[in-house]
């Protein structure tokens, strides 16, 4: 047994902007243990429910994360709707899913670009982000913002998308798919990419289950966990939904799962556009949540399952709001995947869980 050395990793590290700190315990070049630490970016957003009324808090909720901002406003709105028994119009449900799937696409493409950058493939990073820009343009065309949309609210959505515009979005996605397939071919077949990802940071299905991992990180280890499978919203109207699974559990499998999910999202959007009914997009929300009333909502965010809990106190302010983000569930799994790897592979493994520490600390 060689001498053990502890190397600090983060919270400021060139490979990922998220402030996560790890104490890496090394034996020569091999990592034998990793001790994670978060707590560098806490903003106290949950506490703000006491200062912003429940309808206005949605603007704070969507600022929990800069990437899945729509997902957080969607999850919060669903929790409030469950708390106050509000029926969301069908068209609004479909529109929410279209925006949510678009944000999943942009999140995954952002991640694929960052992953390419992490393993030193600059041009792949640039091309992936160039393609992602089209999704951001769709956001701006439909909701007015590129990142923060401010379009979801308890009871529905603020603005409608015309059917002709929805068709135009499908056309943009169809042209994008051709270019996306070329980028995917590089990700999956290029020998330099494979040499950095295949067999690195393997997490077995048993370990993934044991540590309660979620999202593409769990699905890459063969765990069939996807919130969209059991969703009662417009997702239940999909003809078929099969989660993207891989049994390899390595960095390559995580990359593959996310890349395939972008394609799956395009299919879901196309199906939603075909099925979208006409009608109202917002139900009226009146009154305040009852005292002691509790509700929760589960959402499949791009990074995995997120959980939202709300409790009312009879006033327009909520008593409690709590979010459990996917990264919080994935950190123990990430540590398990890091154990036994080479020091040079640590950035890759951390990146492949797609950590969002800002979400986790709120």
């Amino acid at each position: 047994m060689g001498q053990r050395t502890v190397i600090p990793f983060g919270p400021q590290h060139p490979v990922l902007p998220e402030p996560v700190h790890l104490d890496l315990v090394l034996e020569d070049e091999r990592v034998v243990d990793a001790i994670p630490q978060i707590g560098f970016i806490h903003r106290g957003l949950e506490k703000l429910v006491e200062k912003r009324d429940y309808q206005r808090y949605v603007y704070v909720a969507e600022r929990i994360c800069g990437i899945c901002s729509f997902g957080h406003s969607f999850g919060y709105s669903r929790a409030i709707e469950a708390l106050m028994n509000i029926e969301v119009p069908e068209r609004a449900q479909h529109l929410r899913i279209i925006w949510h799937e678009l944000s999943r696409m942009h999140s995954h493409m952002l991640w694929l670009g960052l992953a390419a950058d992490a393993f030193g493939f600059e041009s792949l990073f640039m091309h992936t982000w160039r393609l992602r820009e089209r999704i951001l343009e769709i956001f701006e065309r439909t909701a007015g913002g590129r990142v923060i949309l401010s379009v979801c609210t308890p009871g529905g959505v603020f603005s409608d998308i015309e059917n002709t515009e929805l068709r135009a979005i499908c056309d943009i996605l169809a042209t994008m798919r051709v270019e996306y397939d070329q980028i995917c071919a590089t990700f999956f077949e290029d020998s330099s990419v494979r040499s950095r990802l295949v067999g690195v940071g393997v997490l077995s299905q048993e370990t993934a289950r044991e540590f309660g991992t979620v999202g593409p990180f769990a699905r890459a280890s063969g765990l069939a966990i996807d919130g969209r499978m059991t969703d009662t919203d417009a997702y239940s109207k999909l003809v078929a939904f099969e989660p993207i699974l891989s049994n390899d559990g390595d960095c390559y499998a995580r990359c593959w799962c996310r890349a395939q999910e972008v394609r799956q999202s395009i299919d879901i959007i196309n199906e939603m556009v075909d099925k979208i009914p006409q009608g109202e997009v917002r139900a009226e929300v009146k009154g305040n949540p009852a005292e002691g009333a509790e509700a929760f909502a589960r959402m499949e965010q791009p990074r995995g399952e997120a959980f939202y809990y709300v409790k009312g106190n009879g006033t327009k302010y909520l008593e409690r709001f709590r979010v459990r983000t996917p990264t919080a569930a994935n950190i123990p799994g990430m540590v398990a995947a890091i154990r036994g790897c080479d020091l040079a592979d640590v950035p890759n493994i951390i990146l492949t869980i797609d950590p969002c520490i800002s979400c986790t600390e709120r």
Partner: protein
Amino acid sequence: MGEFKLGRMTLKSLFSKPATKLYPFEEPTYYQETKGHIVIDVDKCRYCGVCANLCPTNAIEVDRKAYTWTIDRFRCIQCRNCVHVCTESALIMANEYAEPSTEHVREVFEISPEEREKREAAAAEKAAKAAKLKEEALAKKKAKAKEE
């Protein structure tokens, strides 16, 4: 062999237009929905203060007596909440972004002199009417008390 998979795409990029815009030399594209900055038609405004009360960042201030509407552009988050709640459709979201500024100044919008005159006259008329009604009610009350 799996090398040079991205070669064709990269070569294409070499001979095509840049994917990004050379701002500020090129004009940015604004869409119909683009959230730029809040614009107010002060003459339409009722100065009810709903936009200020419901603003999530308290960026708006409304003075009913002075007929002024003030916005702090540094605080505004372009959520469009004020546009949604305005009953008079006096607020609109313009597509162009607000001008950059190095000083923290609040923009104050004042009602036009003609509209102010009109509203002050209407308010005076309303006050006179109310005073008259009050007087009449008082007189009636007095008369009733005398009869009794």
